[in-house]
């Protein structure tokens, strides 16, 4: 009987001891990262407030004018054009990524795999500013492509590739390829090779194996990569700025114009909200894909 008494007495302080100190370190551990993430939330809320304010009196009154203007035909066409560019670049990046990812998964040489990884990461890491000088030299009126075309056809300046949609698309695809390749590699590498062998033993031709075995199993990676590139490119700013001239406008570019030279803060903030909304949808969709691919593993 006495032993039961002691054991309960000993257990009581233990129970209270676990509840508090386990929580407190977690808060401290998360604090620095939380401050940075919190600043992001403050930024979002600031723009949200401004978007509902009248022009030149952003902090005082309330108005829906900015949102009405943001969805007027002119700005709507730019929003749709941005989404269209992001979509096409996402599809192109995924198509380009597929053979690269296949190579990375199948090669037995570790060196080759690391080298390819570095090569595709390089454009993203170096950034478009430096590369834009290279793009101008390739795509420009007297650039590499037009010189080659001149040698073949004898016609000068056949292609106008710079400062239009084509140039922008090329830039958008080139800088986001790692975002498409990496999820593809992770979903391709979990396809057991005996599954492919089983398909070929069962009489599937290679193309059929691709269509019915490899492609469906790579689908989570394809979807995740496409969504990521799409999300990244809806916010495109440097590429249209440097390769699009003033002819190709995206949401990010007109936000800069409204916030800067035109000083229409509410409209810029409202367009920012549209961009954030797209980004959040992408995050949700990507999370959904991620959990599905994890589930399939």
């Amino acid at each position, binding site marked *: 009987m006495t032993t039961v008494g002691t054991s309960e007495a000993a257990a009581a302080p233990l129970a209270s001891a676990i509840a508090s100190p386990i929580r407190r370190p977690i808060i401290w551990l998360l604090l620095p990262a939380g401050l940075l993430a919190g600043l992001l939330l403050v930024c979002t809320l600031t723009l949200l407030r401004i978007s509902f304010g009248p022009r030149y009196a952003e902090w005082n009154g309330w108005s829906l004018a900015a949102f009405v203007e943001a969805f007027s035909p002119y700005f709507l066409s730019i929003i749709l054009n941005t989404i269209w560019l992001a979509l096409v670049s996402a599809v192109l990046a995924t198509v380009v990524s597929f053979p690269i990812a296949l190579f990375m998964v199948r090669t037995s040489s570790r060196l080759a795999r690391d080298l390819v990884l570095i090569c595709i990461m390089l454009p993203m890491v*170096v*950034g478009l500013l430096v*590369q834009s000088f290279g793009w101008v030299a390739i795509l420009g009126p007297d650039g590499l492509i037009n010189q080659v075309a001149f040698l073949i056809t004898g016609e000068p300046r056949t292609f106008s590739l710079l400062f239009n949609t084509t140039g922008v698309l090329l830039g958008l695809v080139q800088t986001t390829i790692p975002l498409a390749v990496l999820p593809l590699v992770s979903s391709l590498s979990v396809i057991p090779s005996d599954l492919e062998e089983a398909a070929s033993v069962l009489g599937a031709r290679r193309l059929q194996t691709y269509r019915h075995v490899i492609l469906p199993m790579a689908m989570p990676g394809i979807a995740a990569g496409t969504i990521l590139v799409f999300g990244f490119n809806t916010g495109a700013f440097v590429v249209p700025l440097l390769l699009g001239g003033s002819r190709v406008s995206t949401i990010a570019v007109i936000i800069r114009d409204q916030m800067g030279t035109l000083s229409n803060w509410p409209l810029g903030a409202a367009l920012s909200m549209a961009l954030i909304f797209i980004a959040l949808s992408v995050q949700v969709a990507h999370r959904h894909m991620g959990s599905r691919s994890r589930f399939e593993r």
Partner: protein
Amino acid sequence: MSGIGRHGAESALIGSVTAILIALILAPIAIVVVMSFTAASTLQFPPPGFSLRWYLEVWHMATGDAASLTRLTESFRVSVAIAALTAFLCVLASVPASYALVRYRFPGRSAVEELLGLPIVFPAVVLGIALLILVSVSGIEFGLWQIVAAHAITFLPFTMRNCITALKGVDPELEEAAKTLGASPLRTFVEIVLPLMRAGIAWGVLLVFILSFNEFTLSYFLYTVDVFPLSIWLFQQSNTSFSPAIFAVSALTIFFNIGIILTVDAIVGKRGGAHIRS
């Protein structure tokens, strides 16, 4: 069998398609490097001859009498300072946060994970403008810290991911062993967890340093007359005088990036590999 032959042809096809695509992906960078060695004073491609004259020109810009006027050296220093501070901040935030996420189960854990992953998709222009508004409303001079804050927010997910992966590779039993041997939680962290995470942390620092060094959009909104990063310097130069010297500076930043990668690889790759059992 014919199956094997077909497989060989298939991998040859994939290999050559990959090679062509990689060549196209690297084309702009390659051309920048090639053009930086041009002997001509125009942007003619291919260059009529090769020389180091534009590197010499850059050298004069950086060290000559006009150095304070061109501000090249100053911009480089500012960019390095911003990149170093950003990398430091990101690691400072990521190491403890990743420890909380990997080692503890707590309510709201997935929400925290989601929030810390958000900057990856958050549009840089929006962040840059919002910070610019906050800075001007506050009326405080933040100097280069306004760019550092923006970079730290944006690149936090990169160090987070590296730290989480590194921490998952540290067997929790090693920490428990240290504790039963008399180490306090802090000492366990410093003596056991941190050294074993070293490679992951180093690669995170490297990645964030390089990304921050080359970053343009956020700097574009947040630079000031006194804080003038290299990327902004390049952008302004390209708008005013488009000479091959810009290519030389660009090529130098590429070499700088690659140099850092190789250095980190040499330090972390070798030392880390010797100690950690596979």
